[in-house]
């Protein structure tokens, strides 16, 4: 590769990534030269502006056609654009929370929080645009390693240390499993380029290869379930959620989970959707039952264990496991609604989860444990915030009028339109949703029925209020007029360029 070709690439399509990278580098330098005693909140604002500018540049690229540069390792298609939008919106909201986060143990944030946050985001964005196993994996590692440190950032806190260690160990095992699966795919096709792999697999069909390919598929998928916090790799979620700071938890449960779905879709759909498999149309279809099984297990585990939790963060951890299961139902159905349903659900999930964490962050301040009783009598202490929390929880529970309901409805449509329809899977989803009412409504009982337990004044910093307002608008507007979001996807014609 010479200088000519390097210049001939349309570097403009990487603009959003470049902005994040630039800001991350700048922040690390500023942090280095900034006097120790200065408040690092300014860095947070800078990071927020960086994310916002990156989002604007992404919108600028919204109608560009499919572009791939750097030997097909980086591709900007409708999938990349729409999911990057989710990552950036989620990160911007989480950054606003982080700016106002004051940990109990009086260690003010270090600057590294903000630039590690941005590098994690950068990793996720790279995955959304990867056209190659190598870049996909590098993006995954960039995200993972940054988030390991983010979890451990409360280094004097015992629970945080335990959480970080668990997170690193299970994370590394999961990554190793994924990599092992990928190695099979590479061994078969001799290429790391996803497009080439797909073509190779599509052109050669040998029954003996099916088993090994299935093993490759399962290993990859199971490894990636770590990022989704789906079964069988969901066990880290409760401990890590409990130990990590609230902004980090909301990052993990929203941005990191979205990134997980990005890599699953990128890798598994691109590689296996066109691979022939004897009787059925493609290998993806023969393997869908395994995904369905894991989706069912994830929903059941998440929703039933959440019932037993008194700690709100642990409860939300299991709830996030359950939501990963719901999204997997959309994936396992492999219907024509798949991409839209997943995208919409993740968008809805983003607003309702970050909103809930924003309120939890304020309410649980001054309490070391996030016992459910921190919500006791919230309606008397702060009626508007209690109502806001109610809306987020109703949306998480999938009650009509909120974004969560429309998201679930779309997933059901996908599950029922295919032939044979996924009756069992969808029924599990519906029943476990009703089970989830119990623990979500448990918070209502605390907020509305219980007397006030802690009387100290709640402080609502402007950033948190902004996040809550944005999330409320998002949750309700998408619930009442979901086409606001669907119209954003209109130029993409149902992601028809995904496999091109």
């Amino acid at each position, binding site marked *: 590769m010479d200088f000519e070709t390097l210049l001939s690439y349309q570097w403009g399509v990487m603009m959003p990534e470049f902005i994040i990278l630039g800001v991350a580098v700048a922040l690390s330098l500023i942090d280095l030269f900034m006097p120790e005693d200065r408040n690092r909140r300014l860095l947070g604002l800078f990071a927020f502006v960086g994310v916002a500018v990156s989002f604007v540049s992404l919108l600028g690229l919204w109608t560009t056609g499919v572009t791939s540069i750097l030997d097909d390792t980086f591709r900007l298609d409708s999938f990349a654009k729409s999911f990057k939008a989710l990552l950036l919106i989620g990160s911007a909201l989480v950054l606003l929370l982080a700016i106002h986060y004051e940990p109990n143990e009086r260690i003010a944030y270090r600057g590294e929080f903000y630039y590690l946050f941005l590098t994690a985001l950068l990793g996720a964005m790279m995955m959304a645009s990867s056209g190659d196993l190598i870049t996909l994996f590098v993006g995954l590692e960039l995200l993972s390693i940054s988030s390991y440190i983010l979890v451990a950032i409360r280094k004097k806190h015992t629970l945080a240390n335990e959480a970080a260690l668990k997170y690193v160990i299970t994370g590394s095992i999961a990554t190793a499993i994924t990599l092992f699966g990928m190695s099979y795919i590479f061994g078969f096709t001799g290429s790391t380029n996803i497009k080439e792999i797909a073509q190779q697999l599509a052109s050669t069909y040998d029954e003996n290869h099916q088993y090994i390919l299935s093993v490759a598929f399962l290993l990859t998928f199971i490894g990636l379930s770590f990022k989704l916090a789906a079964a069988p790799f969901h066990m880290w979620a409760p401990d890590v959620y409990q130990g990590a700071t609230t902004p980090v938890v909301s990052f993990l449960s929203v941005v990191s989970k979205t990134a997980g779905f990005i890599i699953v879709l990128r890798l598994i759909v691109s590689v296996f959707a066109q691979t022939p498999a004897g009787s059925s149309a493609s290998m993806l279809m023969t393997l869908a039952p395994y995904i369905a099984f894991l989706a069912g297990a994830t929903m059941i585990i998440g929703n039933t264990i959440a019932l037993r939790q008194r700690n709100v963060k642990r409860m939300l951890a299991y709830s996030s496991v359950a939501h990963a299961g719901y999204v997997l139902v959309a994936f396992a159905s492999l219907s024509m609604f798949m991409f839209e349903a997943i995208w919409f659900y993740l968008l809805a999930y983003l607003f309702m989860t970050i909103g809930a964490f924003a309120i939890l962050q304020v309410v649980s301040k001054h309490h070391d444990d996030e016992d459910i009783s921190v919500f006791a009598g919230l309606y008397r202490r702060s009626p508007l915030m209690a109502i806001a929390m109610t809306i987020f929880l*109703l949306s998480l529970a999938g009650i009509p009028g909120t974004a969560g309901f429309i998201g679930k409805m779309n997933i*059901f449509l996908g*599950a*029922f339109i295919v032939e044979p329809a996924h*009756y069992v899977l969808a029924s599990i989803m519906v029943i476990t949703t009703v089970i989830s009412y119990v623990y979500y409504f448990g918070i209502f009982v605390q907020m*509305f029925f219980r007397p006030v337990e802690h009387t100290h004044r709640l402080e609502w910093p402007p950033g948190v209020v902004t996040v809550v307002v944005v999330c409320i608008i998002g949750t309700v507007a998408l619930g009442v007029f979901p086409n606001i979001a669907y119209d954003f996807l209109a130029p993409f014609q149902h992601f028809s360029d995904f496999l091109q």
Partner: protein
Amino acid sequence: MQPYFLSLLIFSPLLGILVLSLISKEQEKAIKWLGVLATLPSLCLSLFAFWQYQNGYDISQLTEKRSWIRFGDFPFLRETDFTVAYELHVDGFALVMIVLTTILATLAALASVSIQKEWKGYFQLFLLLEIGMLGVFAASNLVLFFIFLELTLIPMFFLIGKWGYFEKEKAAYSYLIYNGLGSAVLLIVIAILFARTGTANIAELRHILTDPIAQMQTISPISDDLRYGLFIALLVAFGVKLPIVPLHRWMLRVHVQAPPSVVMLHAGVLLKIGAFGLVRIALGLFPGQFQQFSTWLIVLGVVNLLYGAFLAFRQTDFKMVLAYSSVSHMGIVLIGLGSLNEAGMQGAIFQAVSHGFIAAFLFFFVGVMYERTRTTTLARLGGMAKTMPYASGFILAGAMASLGLPGTSGFISEFMAFVGAFRAEPWLAAIGTLGIIMTAVYLLRAVLRITFGQTTVTNVHDLRGIEWVPAISLLLFIVIIGVYPNVLAMPLQTTIETMMNGLGG
């Protein structure tokens, strides 16, 4: 006016919610008055529509339709596939239910004067509940129906859980889980129908499901087995709401633990959503399956009737007597529906409306009694004929209506339901009449305990002031329907004819 009439009717309580949110929560009197006032616009609108309809106005002109949600537009599908429109319409049946709802809402709001705390939140939730109930009856597509149905779930949870009696939270949870599961089953049915046909509109679905040519052209096939599955699922979903016997436990708890003004709406309207759904959706979309299961419906109805009646006899608490009496009376709705003839259908719908008024009436007096005596246990009540002669008289009248005394609405509906049932399944109907006798026994036992016997509570005052309004107006409605049933029969005529046509005459 016409294109917005129904929306205005349904959403007018919203105005009350907004105004209430501006008022300080300490102003008890203002809040209570506003709460009652806020129910009046929809009451006036619905009565106006009912009056116009009686005079020959064609209510199908009130139909509203606006495009709303669109799930994906695929080039290979029709423009309208996978869209959910905001569409409302009413027919005679729906209009009757809406009138019932608005009347009971206003009267229950009047009865809410006995609410002791947090009036502001109470009335806001109360009005939200009213919106949900009205919407359910006017929705013309299943998704909208479901949305309004769930809109009743959330306010009810809070109304029971916050303003109820001693075991209120348990009752609220029990309500939530049973109804949540019922709704969940309903949601599965709705999603399957919507996904496989591309439409959620009830009229279009009826066409697709019953027309042999249209059946071939669905987006995904709907097999016969699937139809049976869907029908049974609908029976379970609405069986929870109605309730049908093994699914009734939640409803007892709600009857006993919720504040009486909320139970007026719950027993008066919410249970009827089950009957409405069975008629509108189960019978409307799956007439073939409905016919095949009709005998089972009568069996379920007789079980409900007898089970409710016998257990009501054993109760020691007046609220429990009334709760089991509701179970028993809903059995008559099922018997009427299962008989599959005009008289039976008419009886079922009449029973739904009539029980709405009677249950609300009796529960209003439960509230009145509890406010004065702080108890509803039969053993601790007694001699009220001396201390509260008027109230006792009303309770007796309510009980008479409930056991089906001629001249009250209870008589005409039970009579017609059984006329239908005797034509369809004489033996089952004969067993069912036992329940009617039991009804007289348990109601008289309970009422006599309350009105006569040893006076246990003295120093209570009789009905006063505003309490006369619900008492007299409810009794009036009960008697009007009993004496002049055409006030209901006329508007229901076309609905019943359509239903019979669907069943093949």
